[in-house]
């Protein structure tokens, strides 16, 4: 029988995947919201809620509680999925059968999770002042630290420049300014917004019973009357009119090249499996066109790959090169894209990609955390597909479909981050 999320309340969905094979139980609580004016405060809020709560109101108390539950892993993260903001609370905890004192540690961990979500360190006036200031500092340092990772920085810049008129094109400088201007009241507003208007998705995997999970989240799910989740939409730009070129300078030893393509997808389910195979043949595994040509034949780089961002319908190509090889590398990448469009990839490449992708997705059921992520990523789809079904759909993709997908792809932006001393 296919798995499906049940509606606990309006805008609150729950899925419990039972499995006895793990030594760990995992619960993820996801809050999906649109990218809007709350985004800066939500960044600080995620950091805040991962470090203290009303009951555990210092970092030491909070972390000691988590550590005392046999080194449970607790984390609150913020990311974007297409043009949705996702705040994810993750709890991974040792299965009850391994505790030394017979403790029901899973129940304790879920109680902690529910409490942290429901009772943050705030009053009716706002979040705790001292911690707000500290969490704003962490968030600012975290945004600035993007510059430390030159590869990630280059991708973030390309994303901003390429999608400058879309919510997806997050401007980190603006985000930094906005975060600086936040206060404890803004955090409270963001929290109230999240609790009342986010779509909430609870996914669990392990030996936890669905009844227990439902019971634990019951009060939380019904705490908001007439919850009306905010509308979640992502704009899919299907074609780039012309290629835009951007070059920026920074102190880097190796130049970082990022190319953004519009895949031509109308929505995240539009020919998804064929687009996935196409992107993989083009720049996925070591059998891909980019790896075998740009790296192996031309020795231009150590890494050169492409990945499909399904939720936004774009493809990102990344490589690290010497500056003087910029044109050579870009020309060869374009050349390989043309080969994909003409359908001139080999049967071997096509078969390799199908078999590698199918194989990888069959293995998704061997980790509680990966399994939760796999299903929660499908929560907005009409049906939930298992790892094996996913593999099956990949294997049904034809060469013709791959070529047709490649023909829909258009190059939007080419971004180079090069050294300060460069011409």
């Amino acid at each position, binding site marked *: 029988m296919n798995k499906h999320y049940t509606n606990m309340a309006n805008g609150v969905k729950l899925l419990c995947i039972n499995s006895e094979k793990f030594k760990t139980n995992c619960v993820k609580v996801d809050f999906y919201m649109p990218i809007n004016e709350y985004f800066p405060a939500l960044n600080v809020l995620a950091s805040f809620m991962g470090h203290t709560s009303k009951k555990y109101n210092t970092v030491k108390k909070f972390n000691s509680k988590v550590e005392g539950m046999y080194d449970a892993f607790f984390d609150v993260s913020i990311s974007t999925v297409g043009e949705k903001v996702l705040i994810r609370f993750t709890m991974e905890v040792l299965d009850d059968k*391994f505790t030394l004192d017979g403790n029901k540690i899973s129940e304790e961990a879920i109680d902690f999770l529910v409490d942290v979500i429901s009772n943050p360190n705030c009053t009716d006036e706002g979040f705790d002042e001292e911690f707000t200031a500290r969490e704003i500092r962490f968030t600012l340092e975290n945004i600035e630290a993007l510059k430390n990772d030159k590869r990630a920085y280059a991708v973030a810049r390309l994303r901003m420049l390429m999608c400058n008129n879309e919510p997806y094109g997050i401007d980190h400088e603006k985000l930094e300014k906005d975060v600086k201007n936040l206060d404890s009241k803004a955090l409270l507003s963001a929290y109230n917004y999240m609790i009342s208007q986010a779509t909430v998705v609870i996914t669990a995997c392990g030996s936890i019973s669905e009844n227990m999970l439902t019971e634990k989240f019951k009060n939380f799910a019904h705490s908001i009357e007439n919850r009306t989740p905010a509308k979640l939409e992502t704009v899919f730009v299907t074609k780039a009119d012309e290629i835009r070129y951007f070059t920026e300078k920074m102190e880097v030893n190796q130049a970082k090249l990022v190319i953004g393509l519009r895949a031509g997808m109308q929505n995240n389910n539009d020919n998804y499996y064929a687009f996935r195979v196409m992107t993989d043949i083009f720049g996925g595994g070591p059998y891909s066109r980019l790896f075998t040509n740009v790296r192996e034949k031309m020795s231009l780089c150590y890494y050169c790959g492409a990945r499909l961002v399904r939720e936004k319908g774009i493809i990102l190509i990344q490589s690290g090169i010497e500056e003087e090889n910029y044109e050579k590398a870009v020309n060869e990448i374009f050349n390989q894209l043309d080969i994909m469009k003409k359908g001139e990839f080999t049967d071997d490449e096509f078969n390799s990609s199908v078999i590698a992708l199918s194989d990888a997705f069959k293995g998704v059921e061997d980790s509680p955390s990966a399994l939760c992520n796999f299903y929660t990523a499908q929560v907005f789809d009409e049906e939930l597909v298992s790892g094996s079904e996913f593999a099956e759909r990949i294997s049904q993709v034809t060469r013709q479909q791959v070529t047709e997908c490649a023909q829909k792809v258009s190059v939007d932006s080419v971004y180079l981050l090069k050294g300060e001393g460069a011409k």
Partner: protein
Amino acid sequence: MSNIKEVKNELLKDSYYEIDHSSGFKIFVYPKENYSSTYAVFGTKYGSIDTCFKKEGEKSFTEVPEGIAHFLEHKLFESEELDAFARYAKTGASANAYTSFDKTCYLFQCSGNFEDSLEILLDFVSNPYFTEQTVLKEQGIIGQEIRMYEDEPGWESLFVLLRAMYHNHPVRIDIAGTVESISHITADLLYECYDTFYNPANMALAVAGNVTVEQVLSIADKMLKPKESKKIERTFQVEPENVVKTYDERHLSVAMPIFAIGFKENVKTPERTLKESMVSNILLDILAGSTSSLYEEMLKDNLINTTFDTEYFEGYGYSAHIFNGESAEPEKVRERINEEITKVMKNGVDSETFQRIKKKHYGSLIMDFDSIDSIGNSLISAYFNNEGIYDQLKLLESITVEDVNNRLRTAFSIENSSMSVIK
């Protein structure tokens, strides 16, 4: 005939098989019930620190260029006909390899065609093929890999620290070598290193997941041929007790200074016992882990952020306790850490904290047995250190507060510590 022994653990309700294969190789098979994927790793106890060695019977030591173990790892994937990646492309396995300070491992993960993939793994690692032409091509690719790491401040800060702490020990050299050092690598040198380190006495195969002993043996019997085991003598220049310098820095463009502080242990014998390593990790958690007072106070005083972390760093002939993170005032962080060490040396470790941290380590040891790649890699590491994969669980119980206090007093010397800063 191969000799097969089953090793059980009652607590985990797991078991694995240790096989002395007729070829002379050691093989481990760790079946995981109801898992759909399998992880296999074939490793040799040969890493970046092995730059000077001789085989039994030889008169003089051979000195080889820095980075050659890693270079050899790249080159083994090639053969006279299809390279290993092209062969894996037909089975769908996801394959990779890594070189560390003291070992080189070749691995794959798959859900189907396990036997075919294992055959590829054992075949390509057993059959080297190098030519001057392919060596030359790889210099370009690895050159770009080295350049990529030059832009990663966390990596740089570790190596600046290691060079500040170690006068002679080759742990101070970069795993991939330098663009200059790898230019001296030739096909003949690669064969020489291969011949020395890639033989049964120095290697092991570990397989974990959806697998049986029969499956592994059916391929191992066919592919692993008896080979002469070589006794290897490694030599290191004498390493003084003191550090080279107490402070060093390097400039890279970073948002905030990135630091690493290392306490060099004066090692009397080349290897630490498993118990010493475990006690060191407990000690670091007590001193500066996320539940320590030091951590909380430094957060409060704006000296660190949540990237602050600790690591016990050890291998053949080296041992250091490392603290790293981001800080606007790294010198102050260093002072605080030194003060804390002095204080705990005098007062001893708090027993309640010790018990909590011990429980934490117990939980994390068990949870590691959910992951097949973690099991595979641990089997190899434990074997190379003459240990078993369940030894840590058994030893943990026996560790006392006195062990932790003793370790602090013997392994830490503020005088013999260094700090690196990337800014």
